[in-house]
């Protein structure tokens, strides 16, 4: 039973193992070693991407993809730089508005895909440019203001023990699991596994697809808020690289882009792996001009691990799955 459970979660577990190794290595070469400051800097850097990867995973589980997730993050980040400041009440209302905006963007994606019957890639590519455009309107150049108190709180640590950002990540996992166990969550997985079967089984396919995009929008807005806390400002141009990295994180975390099977936790590990690799460059003597090459190669190698399953393949047909 335990072995079967382990085997079922092989790929996310591998991702976590790799991450653990990278962290230990990173701390061992860091001149300061393990300290709460080092840990906080490390986890702060990965949190925005991790939150985004959670949203992306939900969509990918439904066999969709959200290329607008980075632009939603940028848009909500810009909104936050207008709304999330001032007194506590204002800040609270501001955060609610920001999250609602993320949900609305996700809703738009879902509606375009379901009612317009468009492929997710192109639909979200298009809505993504719209969201970027709106972000540019509300914040033509980076700037604005975000509650410093919240910023200190979220980018600091908890009692000198745990970085707050790690707690945020755990919170994201905790928020998803009840959803996954709900009918909506199950329908999302069912639609990703076989849409026609889900439809024929009487499941509410449309509702689940829309739900997946709305959830992705919400997580993107949380990510946008977190970037705001980190940078105390809004920036309309941060989207694109985040979108692609969120997909990379999902894949490294073991979720199949073909939907149906995968896990949030794996994607979070994937996101943190990507960021830790960036960190590793600091104290290894790598020529600065070689850094992009190094990062590219590491990504190439990381995704190549997906090919390992081919070695275990007993039927050539398995390659097509």
């Amino acid at each position, binding site marked *: 039973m335990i072995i079967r459970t382990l085997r079922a979660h092989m790929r996310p577990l591998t991702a976590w193992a790799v991450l653990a190794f990278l962290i230990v290595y990173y701390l061992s070469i860091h001149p300061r070693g393990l300290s709460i400051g080092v840990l906080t800097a490390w986890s702060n850097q990965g949190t925005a991407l991790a939150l985004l990867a959670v949203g992306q995973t939900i969509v990918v589980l439904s066999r969709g*993809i959200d290329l607008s997730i980075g632009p939603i993050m940028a848009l909500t980040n810009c909104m936050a730089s207008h709304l999330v400041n001032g007194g506590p009440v204002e800040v609270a209302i501001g955060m609610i508005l920001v999250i609602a905006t993320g949900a609305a963007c996700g809703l738009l994606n879902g509606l*375009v895909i379901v009612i*317009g*019957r*468009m*492929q997710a*890639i*192109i*639909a979200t*590519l*298009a*809505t*993504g*440019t*719209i969201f*970027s*455009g*709106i972000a*540019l*309107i509300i914040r*033509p150049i980076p700037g604005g203001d975000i509650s410093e108190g919240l910023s200190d709180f979220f980018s600091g640590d908890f009692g000198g023990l745990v970085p707050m950002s790690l707690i945020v990540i755990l919170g994201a996992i905790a928020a998803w699991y009840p959803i996954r166990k709900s009918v909506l969550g199950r329908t999302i997985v069912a639609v990703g596994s076989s849409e026609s079967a889900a439809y024929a089984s009487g499941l509410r396919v449309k509702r689940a697809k829309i739900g997946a995009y709305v959830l992705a929008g919400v997580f993107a807005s949380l990510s946008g808020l977190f970037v705001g806390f980190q940078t105390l400002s809004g920036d309309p141009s941060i989207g694109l690289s985040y979108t*692609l990295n969120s*997909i*990379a994180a999902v*894949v490294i975390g073991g979720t199949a*882009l073909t939907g149906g099977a995968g896990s949030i936790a794996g994607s979070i590990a994937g996101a943190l792996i990507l960021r830790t690799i960036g960190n590793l460059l600091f104290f290894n003597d790598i*020529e600065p*001009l*070689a*850094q*992009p*090459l*190094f*990062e*590219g*190669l590491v*990504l*190439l190698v990381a*995704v*190549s691990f*997906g*090919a390992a*399953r*081919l070695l275990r393949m007993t039927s*050539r*047909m398995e*390659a*097509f799955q």
Partner: protein
Amino acid sequence: MTAVFARLPFDVPTRSIVMAAALLLLVGGWQYPQFFSPPYLAQQLQSGAFLGIVAAGAMVVILLGHIDLSVPWTMTAAATVATAVVGLTPEVLVSEKGVLAGLAVGAAVGAVNGFGVAYLRIPSMIWTLATNNVLMGILVYFSGFYALSSRPSPLMSMLGSGRMFSIPNVVFVWVAVSLILLFILRSTTLGRRIYMVGTHEPAAYLSGVNSRGVLVAGFVIAGICSAMAGMLLAGYAGQSYQRMGDTYLLPGIAAVVLGGTSLFGGRGNYSGTVAGVMLLTLMASILSIMQAPEAAKQIVYGVVVITMVGFYSLRERYS
């Protein structure tokens, strides 16, 4: 109106786009009379040709049910290598070795892309993203090329910026690429197999198609198209420069999809891609001439893509 619409040749997406582009020209021309001037139209064709060549390659990969995100740095790499080789061998004619080198770079990148997708079975969206990053890394690292000349060869300059009968030469290159691609897709076994693999790869394998070979071939074609576009762009700009491909990736994909090709693979006509390229090009320059702010451009772009693609998927559904 509808009667005229229905009688036009070509499939629905192509027709719709041609109509939309005509509409754009009319409205634009009403505001700016220069729109109908031959230099303006020639200029549009020239801009369109670069995108068109990229989109031609993108279409092959999309027909296979995959996507190639390595376009930007494949273009840059091919152009950089080509101009570097020109710098090393400046003698006339010999310098055209640079063109061959550039094409070889494109083919090699395509082969690596195809290898990862077909043999290692990594999703193309992620594998080509990785190869794109590696290419960027290589170019940044070896910007020792930087010490070499970045001058294009005479052929590149001639094709990239020359004109014949006041029509830009790139347009002829685009036409040639289009004809070759049309021929491949319609009349060769490779074309048939591209559609088969794109429709359902397991069935292709079980039907005796060497699906891995077909995938690699498709990515190589795309790589070569990107390389050509990169070198022509270097010919046009008189130099190779980094990030030269950044603005071609997403429009290239959008043009293919606007043209009615399914991102799931197996379905699509090349005429649609050509029409998609024209529409995007026209739209971009009209917006730029109207001095629309960047934000408005992006929003219009997104709305147009959603409207057009939504229109034909709904039309297909309910007709």
